[in-house]
């Protein structure tokens, strides 16, 4: 049972890594700035899920706190970037 769990965590990590690669390619290609911001949004959510999978693998709750911080700061930075695209400045 433990071996099955270990292999499924490895599979989930590989799949989430592929998802992060898709988002990174969209950031590099993205024809316009808003495409890059959407790619960044997807990238940080995937990184957060990857950290949760690492937390299941190691059995420690430290990774959960890192994932929570990524979710918070990622939201703030996405809104800041979108606000910059909307107005040309972040804080008015």
């Amino acid at each position: 049972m433990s071996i099955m769990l270990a292999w499924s965590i490895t599979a989930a990590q590989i799949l989430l890594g592929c998802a992060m690669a898709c988002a990174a390619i969209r950031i590099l290609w993205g024809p316009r700035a808003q495409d890059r911001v959407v790619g960044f949004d997807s990238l940080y959510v995937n990184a957060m899920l990857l950290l949760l999978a690492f937390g299941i693998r190691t059995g420690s709750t430290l990774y959960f706190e890192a994932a929570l911080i990524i979710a918070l700061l990622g939201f703030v930075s996405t809104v800041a970037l979108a606000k910059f695209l909307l107005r040309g400045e972040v804080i008015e």
Partner: protein
Amino acid sequence: MNPAGEIPALPAILTVVLLVSGAVVTLIGSFGLLRLPSFYERVHAPTLGTTLGTACIVSASIIYFSALGNRLVLHELLIIVLVTVTTPISLMVLVRAARLRDGAEDDEISSHKERNKHL
């Protein structure tokens, strides 16, 4: 390589199923982000990962840590609440910015054509 502790069979199977299905759903969402043709279609795809994918993986984490510690561990729910509340806000602001930029570009193009017509 091996997970930290041994847990009973039923929570382990639930963890495996939820973890892998959440990862697959997230990958499908990110692949849609890569493949869809226009920006307004692309915005929809990653929300698959932020809603269903996050819910599945966080549920797997809750079940695993509850079975590992023999008590109910619910602090991972914070991530579900945070991501579910914040994703629509950031995407709404982003799409408004994109619409504004598209509109500004169209105005610029039409005024440019207007000027060329006068010439």
